[in-house]
């Protein structure tokens, strides 16, 4: 079911963008190209720093990831159980696939509760302080992706909720 929905969403995305590989452009944000279920090129051509990525992930105001996910962060109390563990994310998914999941997971699964971290369009009643801003900027997305890509230990397939 989830897979069928994902396929459907992807098909719709391709149809409305005029095909796989079209450039998604949002005002003020770096453009990106979705290929299959991935974004191959780093946002803005930036290079991620895994140490900064880790700091963003455990920051409950910034990355918010541990509100929903658990992961290999023994120093962190109160990890969420809404989403699969991040352990082994880099073994399950390529860096390009991880990038799309952080940028806008709704392109793969329209029902997902995971926030779209690099998206400012199609949102409703965004609070003034956050208007027109993505949750993470391009550099921060690349930092997070770099950290996740290096998370090799953990299940390499399947749901790990």
């Amino acid at each position: 079911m989830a897979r069928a929905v994902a396929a459907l969403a992807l098909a719709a995305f391709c149809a409305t963008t005029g095909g796989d590989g079209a450039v998604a452009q949002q005002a003020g944000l770096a453009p990106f190209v979705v290929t299959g279920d991935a974004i191959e090129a780093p946002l803005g051509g930036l290079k991620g720093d895994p140490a900064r990525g880790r700091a963003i992930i455990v920051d409950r105001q910034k990355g918010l990831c541990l509100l929903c996910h658990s992961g290999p962060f023994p120093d962190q109390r109160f990890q969420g159980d809404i989403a699969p563990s991040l352990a082994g994310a880099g073994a399950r998914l390529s860096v390009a696939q991880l990038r799309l999941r952080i940028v806008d997971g709704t392109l793969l699964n329209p029902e997902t509760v995971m926030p779209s971290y690099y998206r400012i369009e199609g949102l409703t009643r965004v609070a003034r302080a956050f208007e027109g801003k993505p949750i993470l900027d391009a550099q921060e997305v690349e930092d997070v992706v770099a950290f996740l890509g290096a998370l090799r230990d953990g299940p390499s397939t399947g749901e790990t909720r």
Partner: protein
Amino acid sequence: MRAALFVLSLGAASAALAEIPADQRKSGADFMSAQTRAMQNDDATNPAMLSVLDGESRWSAKAGAGAKSCADCHGPAETSMKGVAARYPAFDAESGRPIDLAGRINSCVETRQQAQPLKPESPGLLALTAYVALQSRGMPVAPPSDERLASFRARGEELWRQRFGQLNFSCAQCHDDNWGRKLGSAPIPQAHPNAYPIYRLDWQGMGSLQRRLRNCMSGVRANAYPYGAPEFVDLELYLMQRAAGMPMETPGVRP
């Protein structure tokens, strides 16, 4: 392009969202620690009872141009207000819209007592609302079957399923699809309105259901509706329908 995609995803989402089956409904109190639950269940330790007592004395205090008290017109609250909170919001013929309990009380303050209306979240309005709602404690939530409410309730349900804010969440995604799971340290409750107004330890004070809804909206980085907004009353109407039959627990305590 975004618009087209969005319509599609909304369609898919509403197909998947399931309402909570009646035998799985749980009061917010069931998600609390045993300690906090015990605090709510014993009037001697429930910090909201101070506000209820304040409400009781306000009930018989004369106010406004006519120097009338609530009791002058309504008599003892134990009889005249029994079951009232369990069936609010109700249709208000004057405004042609639903009105919630606090709004109803304030309309009496303004038009019957001819006094200054009480501010949203003011201690006086919270106290009167808690005192009136206490008279329904233990009674089942009983939303009126008034046809005039149907379209407002439907609008409330729409808002319930609408995604909001920078984090792009709907109420339903948390409270229908993920209740019982942990959001960081906080268990997600089912969002039943049957214990409001509440004393929240985190607020160190009383708050209305609308204050709670504003917290949830700000939590997803949305611009929350203002107090008294019609959207909130519509949402309350839907929440009461969703909780129909559950016992009223006002005054609740929350962490």
